[in-house]
């Protein structure tokens, strides 16, 4: 039966007496793999179709691991192996990298700041503004102008937020999206002990224009702060 992988913890970490139910509806279990303990579930098929419920179930398992006071390495959704032995072999092949990541996030959690940006949109190009080539170029310029506006707004907001929470941040990842919604997502790696102070600092801060909405999420497992795939 295939094995579905959720997250990784240092060996010796005791699994809670009541493990959560996973994406396939079966209880999650701890699987020893060298110096690592993996949280896995036996599933009926190697391909797990993502649904909102399954994505939430996957995240809930890593949340439970995080709640046990040991920071897990969260695994990306949808990774299955033919058997427990295959899973162990795959983990053994990457053990040095994984142990390095576990050490890096030890005692840390990820906080996420979601910022919807209210940026001024450049005017639409009139359909009869000229030849098709001219209209096309104007549309490209309009899109470029919008993107530049979003990036400039995101940089200003990021600077303000960094000033406020900078003392707590051990690492940061930034994602700016111009479409479909102008969004800035800041991921901060912070010490578990700093979560309350981090939140309080953001609540007291004035993000100011051009912030349309600011949402603070977390603590979550450090999805954003793992090594990229090799």
């Amino acid at each position, binding site marked *: 039966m295939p094995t579905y992988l959720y997250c990784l913890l240092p060996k010796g970490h005791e699994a809670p007496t009541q493990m959560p139910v996973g994406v396939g509806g079966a209880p999650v279990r701890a699987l020893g793999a060298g110096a690592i303990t993996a949280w896995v579930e036996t599933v009926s098929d190697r391909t797990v179709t993502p649904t*909102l*419920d399954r994505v939430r179930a996957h995240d809930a398992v890593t949340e439970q691991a995080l709640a046990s006071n040991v920071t897990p390495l969260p695994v990306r959704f949808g990774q299955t192996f033919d058997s427990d032995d295959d899973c162990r072999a795959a983990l053994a092949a990457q053990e040095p990298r994984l142990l390095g990541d576990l050490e890096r996030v030890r005692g840390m959690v990820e906080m*996420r700041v979601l910022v919807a940006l209210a940026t001024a949109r450049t005017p639409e190009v009139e359909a009869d503004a000229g030849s098709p080539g001219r209209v096309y170029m104007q549309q490209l310029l309009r899109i470029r102008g919008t993107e530049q506006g979003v990036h400039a707004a995101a940089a200003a907001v990021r600077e303000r937020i960094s000033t406020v929470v900078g003392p707590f941040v051990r690492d940061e990842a930034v994602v700016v999206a111009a479409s479909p919604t102008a*969004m800035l997502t800041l991921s901060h790696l912070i010490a578990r002990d700093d979560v309350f102070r981090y939140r309080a600092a953001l609540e007291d801060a004035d993000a100011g224009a051009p912030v349309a909405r600011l949402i603070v999420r977390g603590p979550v497992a450090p999805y954003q702060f793992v090594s990229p795939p090799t």
Partner: protein
Amino acid sequence: MSADDRVADTEELVLSDLLNRVLDRGVVIAGEVTISVANIDLVRVGLNIYIAAIETELQKAAERDRKHRSLFNANLPLLPPPQGP
């Protein structure tokens, strides 16, 4: 913007963030992550497109939700079946 709209917008942002985080971040052990939707395997190389498609679907779902005030079914696959030629 009404209070209901603000709540809907917030839920949409949070849901979009959850999908981006769980489907496109985290440790990759198995080389390529194979996610199948409607019997089509979407591998790592296509994941950005996949995420964009999910965001589009979320926007549509949010629009439907605003109009009909009914939550979309959490058990449905995140993408609709492909349309025929």
